[in-house]
């Protein structure tokens, strides 16, 4: 479970996050939807302790992220916006590196990576060097290494960015499987279809604030719009920066 309360983050005079609060529960998929530049990535970076919020708190499974960032990181699996691989290492070596950094022993790393490689359909390229991987192969490897330590909470920043239709569908199935395992899944997107297709709960962010935090049905009801797209546009006040 991830709880965010009254998060503030400013870069110079630019206010990126201005009082964001929400809760992402275990066993459901929470979507962070907002136009480009709304503060999604900054919010997530504060969540996975890469950045320190100016104000407000983050708790993961009840642990304070500012007081004990190490414990929080152990409970998080993160696919950040930056998802570069080590090109001279194979996919499997990339995954194992992160496993070792999590302090896992070699046997655990071997069994877990074998399982993830099977689950993500990576067998065909797992032992090739990452140089020349397709976008889809890269994202799969990045996800596999983020989940090597079997975290209960999974944060993904725009996971389907740059993926083709097939890869996107596979990604959705994968996220649903994570939910079925009872994990807390939080992902950000600026693509409405995606959020609508996947999420049990939608947190809409605009200009660094939460403008809605509802289930998809409740959102439609609240705005009085029959389809989600119109509901979002109404919430955000503009359709700029959103993709259908």
């Amino acid at each position, binding site marked *: 479970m991830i709880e965010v309360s009254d998060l503030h983050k400013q870069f110079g005079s630019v206010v990126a996050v201005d009082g964001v609060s929400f809760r992402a529960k275990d066993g459901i998929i929470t979507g962070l939807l907002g136009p480009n530049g709304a503060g999604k990535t900054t919010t997530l*970076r504060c969540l*996975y*302790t*890469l*950045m*320190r919020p100016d104000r407000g708190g983050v708790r993961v499974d009840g642990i304070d992220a500012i007081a004990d960032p*190490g*414990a929080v*990181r*152990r409970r*998080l699996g*993160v*696919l*950040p*916006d*930056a*998802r*570069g*691989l*080590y*090109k*001279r*290492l194979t996919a499997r*070596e990339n995954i194992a*590196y*992160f496993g*070792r*950094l*999590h*302090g896992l022993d070699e046997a655990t790393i071997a069994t877990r990576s074998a399982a993830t490689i099977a689950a993500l359909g990576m067998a065909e390229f797992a032992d090739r060097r990452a140089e020349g991987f397709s976008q889809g192969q890269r994202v799969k490897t*990045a996800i596999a*290494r*983020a989940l090597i330590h079997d975290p209960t909470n999974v944060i993904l920043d725009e996971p389907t960015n740059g993926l083709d239709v097939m890869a996107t569908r596979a990604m959705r199935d994968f996220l649903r499987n994570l939910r079925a395992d009872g994990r807390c899944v939080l992902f950000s997107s600026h693509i409405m279809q995606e959020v609508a297709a996947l999420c049990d709960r939608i947190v809409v962010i605009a200009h660094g604030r939460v403008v809605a935090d509802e289930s998809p049905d409740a959102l439609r009801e609240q705005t009085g719009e029959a389809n989600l797209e119109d509901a979002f546009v109404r919430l955000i006040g503009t359709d700029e920066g959103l993709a259908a």
Partner: protein
Amino acid sequence: MRSIVTVFAKELKDSLRDRRTVINTLVTGPLLAPLLFVLLINTVVTRELEKGEKPMVLPVAGAQYAPNLVAALHQADVKIEPAPADPERAVREQDADVVLRITPHFADAWNKGQTAQVEVIYDESQSDSRSAARRLHALLDGLSARTGALRLVARGLSPSLQQPIVVAERDQSTPQSRSGVLFAMLPYFFIIGAFIGGMAIAIDTTAGERERQSLEPLLVNPVPRWKILAGKLATTTAFALATVLLSVLAFAVVGHLMPTDRIGMTLDIGVTFVVRTLVVMLPLAALIASVQTLVAAFAKSYREAQTYVSLLMLVPIVPVLLLSFLPYKAQLWMYAVPLMGQQVVIARLVRGDAVPAVALAACFVCTALVAIVACVVTARIYRSERLAISA
């Protein structure tokens, strides 16, 4: 500790798989300088020695005025040739190394027992001409002294009257210490070797990692940043030291390939030399790695990091080159200054002089302390939020 080793092992494997880095740091870097050295010195020495052994060719103007002198030169294995029309011009244009001119008054003065003058036309700025003139000058001096002695004897006087003082030189240099002059650049090559060896890795593990978008995911792992940095610094230091070691070994081999013994020098790089050099270079390699990492971590991009780190290489050039060519007497404080200490220690080792244990210790400890400070500063910078974000 385990996570430091993990980062170190990964960076090592990653870098060793990068062919360009390996070639630059482990092949070109350490081997280029010794190769240049061996080529240069071989050519120069061989040429000089060959010239010394070959009979000298000497154009003489006015040979007819001093047949006895010419005959004496001929006996001394000098090949006499007719002089060019304009000797000065011929020497300036490098058509002749040296020309001897004998004036019509020579015979007259010679026969009267007066001092007779000959002219040696040469060009001091040309090494070929300069050495030929020296050789000729020495020959003529010898002839002059012999003739003078004969004249004194003919008058019933002892030739020693002519030479009230005789100098006996007692040269304290050894073949090895003489080579210190020739190999004054050696410490410089080793120090630059450490810079070259660390450069690519320092950039690759910081600015490069950020540019390839893998720094952010790396920092999300539950490992304190300073440990990640420590692993990266260890890799950079290892590469820098490897370059230095290869460079030392290359010079050890090259020392045997160069015809230094023929010019009365030896370059003896043995086990003691290698071990001591590595001992004093170890903390310096760590210091260099840390400063390079600091500079590279600040840079916005890989290219920018390359520029900064290359500029950093200029820092040691001035003091190290000054110390290579200016005469100085080693003082204890000199050993304690990073860069200078290594320079002084290696220069003494090259000359075959002993380096006191206290000096070695001072060099190691002081550089190590500075290196630790540099690492701590770098670790602090590394904690900055801005560092992780690949904009």
